[in-house]
């Protein structure tokens, strides 16, 4: 009944601390880029939705382009992870109401607070502490979705 795999019994082993550090560093680099490219700015998001500047489109467009080429190369050359495990891809279920309705609801909030989840975290690190109110809202919104999920079209 109480049998557990070693990884469950030792969640804080040295190996997992080392592995965790990688993700902490990757996040730190992402956070620095998010601040330095100003994509965490409420004003930059307004500029984007008003089509007054190419900046945000340049950031997102070139990110997607680099992402597409990277994923293609990983698939083409069957690249493995650093520990030699296969890299997997899963197709998203083609049921569209959730993507268009959920996406639109997300977009309404994105424009209002001028930040999506990644930038919220970078803003917190930048000392914009009122973003905590936004994050509390996002947390409550996540709860609300969990409670209503079975009643929503997907």
């Amino acid at each position, binding site marked *: 009944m109480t049998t557990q795999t070693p990884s469950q019994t030792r969640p804080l082993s040295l190996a997992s601390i080392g592995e*965790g*550090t*990688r*993700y*902490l560093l*990757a*996040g*730190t680099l*992402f956070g620095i*880029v998010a601040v330095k*490219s*100003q*994509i*965490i*700015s*409420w*004003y930059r*998001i307004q500029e984007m*939705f008003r089509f007054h500047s190419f900046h945000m489109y340049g950031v*997102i467009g*070139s990110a*997607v382009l*680099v*992402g*597409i080429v*990277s*994923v293609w190369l*990983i698939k083409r050359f069957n690249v493995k*992870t*650093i520990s030699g495990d296969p*890299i997997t891809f899963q197709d*998203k279920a083609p049921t569209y109401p*959730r*993507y*268009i*309705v*959920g*996406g*639109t*609801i*997300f*977009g*309404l*909030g994105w424009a209002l607070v001028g930040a999506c*989840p990644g930038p919220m*975290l970078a*803003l917190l*690190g930048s*000392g914009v502490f*009122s973003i905590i*109110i*936004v994050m509390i*809202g996002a*947390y*409550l*919104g*996540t709860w*609300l*979705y969990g409670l209503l*999920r079975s009643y929503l079209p997907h």
Partner: protein
Amino acid sequence: MGILEFLQQPWAWYVAGPLIGLTVPALLFLGDKKFGISANFRHACAMVPNNVSFFQYDWRKESWNLLFALGIVLGGLVGSTLLNNGEPLQIAAQTQTALESLNITFDGELVPQQIFANFSVGNIAILLIGGLLVGFGARYAGGCTSGHAISGLSDLQLPSLVAVIGFFIGGLVMTYLLFPLIF
């Protein structure tokens, strides 16, 4: 110009965009992890004992993402202090004019201080409701800007494209139709 002064300038889109794009293969390479930040809000729900089926899974297995999120906060700190030259933000004059007509004055900060540093009931409601829409919408759509617009599009997922179109429909409706009613 020293390297620090160089890095302290705002980074151009063609520098920042590719670096953000590289997050996708970096996380795949580090451990077959999918770049998606809003999932952390779900993990934070799953940490609290509850009976909601959507939150019944072992969030500890996703702790890499919580560490990634913590890293973003640290990156925000580094980017805004060590790598900050203190110059005010610059945005398009047209955007400043458009916002001025909504009585939002451009102040050169990252976020408008009149909304984010003035804790009126109205402003708190804006921040809370905006956050609620982001959190609810991201889970309903199964991802946010990172999960759909970056990760999903990188893997040429049509559902992600539909979600991104939704992000823009919502953003345009908010900006052009609802901002005049809210501000």
